[in-house]
């Protein structure tokens, strides 16, 4: 028994984060875990910022955007976070309701998405419209509108994510609602015969898709760029939908209880600058929300750029989310 506790103690001391005595201030940023992965933008951004700030940047990785918000709710004002990076716009109403954030108070250069998003508290750092990605080896004529997706043949299936557990799933639910309004329930009923399955998160859906289980999956306009750049294949593509595409915008906010707000503001300003934005396209596989120094890789030029983009007011989403999910359940769980 004692030897176990000794082992435990050793373990706790060896792999727990050690707070080294250090004169430099530390900036703690909560984000989702794929952001901080070795191949993600986290490590290079940390390096770039630390070169300019005379500080330590500490990433705290939490599963995903939703878990991030929940972590914050659990911690309340005792949170260690100076900045939370990685919420999506559908979460900002709830994030504001926690009263844990304050306006960032920085100057945001105008960009492609400024007209869709200009919040004082939550600053956009990247975005991508959702899109149906299809597999050239598995189908010939992909749908070119949401209508065609809904009405298309039942043999050609799509894999979706559950709006109760994942942000792309929620995004697609709002997309359907935005296009179909009152007729959304009927549309879901029709679509349900084309749904192969509804997975808990994006990873499960996309893995099934690349495994060849279905010719279509809900993902992002930017997804084909990964396959073109990293795998040198144009097997997977997106087509533009006539009704327009729903936008996912990822944002970051300044935490009110943070110990070092000037430094946190400096980071947010850095976040919208090229030194940060340059790492977004090929490491987070999203469109940079601000200007970059390097031009986007040429493969990004082959991606579709939807003319019409939708983004519902977060307040509307927060108010109706539950009833929309109930409607979706009624229509698809028959």
């Amino acid at each position, binding site marked *: 028994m004692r030897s176990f506790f000794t082992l435990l103690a050793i373990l706790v001391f060896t792999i727990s984060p050690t707070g080294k005595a250090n004169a430099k201030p530390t900036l703690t940023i909560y984000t989702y875990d794929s952001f901080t992965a070795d191949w993600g933008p986290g490590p290079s951004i940390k390096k770039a910022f630390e070169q300019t700030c005379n500080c330590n940047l500490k990433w705290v990785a939490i599963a995903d955007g939703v878990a991030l918000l929940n972590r914050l709710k659990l*911690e309340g004002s005792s949170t260690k976070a100076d900045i939370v990076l990685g919420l999506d716009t559908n979460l900002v109403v709830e994030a504001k309701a926690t009263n844990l954030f304050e306006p960032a108070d920085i100057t945001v250069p105008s960009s492609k998405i400024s007209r869709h998003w200009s919040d004082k508290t939550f600053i956009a750092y990247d975005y991508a419209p959702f899109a149906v990605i299809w597999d050239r080896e598995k189908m010939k004529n992909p749908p070119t509108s949401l209508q065609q997706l809904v009405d298309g043949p039942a043999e050609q299936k799509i894999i979706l994510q559950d709006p109760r557990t994942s942000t792309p799933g929620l995004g697609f639910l709002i997309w359907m609602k935005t296009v179909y309004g009152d007729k959304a329930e009927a549309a879901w009923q029709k679509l349900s015969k084309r749904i192969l*399955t509804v997975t*808990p998160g994006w990873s499960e859906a996309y893995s099934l898709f690349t495994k060849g289980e279905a010719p279509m999956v809900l993902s992002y306009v930017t997804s084909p760029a990964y396959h073109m750049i990293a795998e040198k294949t144009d097997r997977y593509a997106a087509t533009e939908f006539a009704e327009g595409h729903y936008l996912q915008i990822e944002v970051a906010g300044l935490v009110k209880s943070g110990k070092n707000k000037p430094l946190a503001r400096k980071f947010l300003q850095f976040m919208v600058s090229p030194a940060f934005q340059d790492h977004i396209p090929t490491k987070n596989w999203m469109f940079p929300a601000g200007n970059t120094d390097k031009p986007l890789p040429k493969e990004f030029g082959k991606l579709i750029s939807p003319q019409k983009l939708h983004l519902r007011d977060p307040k509307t989403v927060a108010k109706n989310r539950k009833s929309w999910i109930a409607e979706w359940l009624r229509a698809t769980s028959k």
Partner: protein
Amino acid sequence: MNTQRAELIPRLAGFSALSFIAVITFGAFIALATKATKGFAFSQIITDTYLGQIITFTLWQATLSTVLSIGLAIPTARAFARQTSFPGRTTLLKLFALPLALPALVGVLAILGLWGKSGWINQLTGDLLDFSIFGLPGILIAHVFFNLPLATRLFLTSLERIPQENWRLASQLQMPPRSIFKFIEWPVLKAVLPGIFTLVFMLCLTSFTIVLTLGGGPASTTLEVAIYQSLRFDFDPGRAVTLALIQLAITVILLTVSFRFTKTLPDINSLKPTDPRPQTGTPVARIIDAVFIISAGCFVALPLLALVIDGLTSDLAKLLFLAAVWKAILTSFILALSAAILCLILCWAMLKAITDQNSSYAGLVSFASSAILVMPAIVLGSGWFILLLNFGDVFSFAPALVIIINALMALPFAHRILAPALAQAQHKHHRLTASLGISGWARWRLIDFPVLKKPLLLAFAFAMALSLGDLGVIALFGSEQITTLPLLLFKSLGSYRTHDAQGLALLLAIACLFILYAAEKVSSKKSTKC
């Protein structure tokens, strides 16, 4: 005096272990309940028709999955018990412990390698069959894939403890296979059946990724999903607690019923219980055994083969040169090893306190070591998060929490392996040790360990494999500092890196096989003391 003291220590240890489990589980519940801002909405929950539908479906799929898994596991285990020496037997049995260690999603992808749209069966048959397993069939296949091998191994450990004398008697009486089954095998199987049945049932009851991913739509949802949802987007701890209590209530009923049916083990008095069974059987029996072994073997091994082949297409060399991969492997091993040690200590402490007189205590132990399975990791995790917030940086507690929760999650498995073995040993040696006055370390070294070495190491290997593949707990507490192999795998999948994930899945499987191999090596080493 001496015997009284000897009884007291195990009782205290057993009581401490039970209290520890109670504190971990109920602590989380209470902490979460204090955060319930919107009330517990009990009346709203019981009138919710969709929820009723979920509960019905949850129970339905769990029952079907369990009956299928157990129904096939019994003849399979019997076949393995009868055919003691065919080539590949030990390898196959090691493979049977592998699904246990696979995160659900990895298992699902492996299954699709065989059964999927682009899987081998569909490829071989061309467009002839063109079937899709999504829906109830997919859920059942996946649950049988995960649970049939588990149940087979558990049944087999019991069958292999049937003493030599019985076989001698059976051959003297020239018993036909049917009588052997009725008089020798079935009494043993029957004794462990309720425990294994409830274990598999609970695993299917709380299935989450499998049911959602293969279920084909929100009609296939389990209560676990509803609990998860209420803590995620809704952040409604009150509702989560209520739903988790409903799930617990279902389990309590089930366990109570199963405890009713739990028979004490048949009276076995043998000095050499581990002697191999003589290979017997008519040609017909051999053919039947072969059918079960080959089909169960293919059912389990082919998806694993698909996993290996996928893994080999990844750039393994590149992965093996990444510091992050080695760090993850090391972290996984340290965490899993600690969890397995803690699990065995708890299990041993609880089981040692069982004597012939206190059967209600035995019931409590079997309940305590099972109920943890139906505590959703997200409930345990969030509850402890809230509790530990008051004591400083939660991240510094993370490794300890991961170890503790994983140890508790492995308890039901360890309990199913150890309880029958220990009961048998206890029964056999009780009078001997009492009369000789052997207790404590001497008893452990001279009496318990030599006989129980095999089940102990098996329980240890199972607990370690299970913790090695854990994703539910580590996903809540993992961080940059503590990344395990499954977490790294899931991160890779989350960033399009399917090939890396396939390579990591292969590494995970190899790590698990290594543990099982090592456990077997140690347990088959002849002890010089005996």
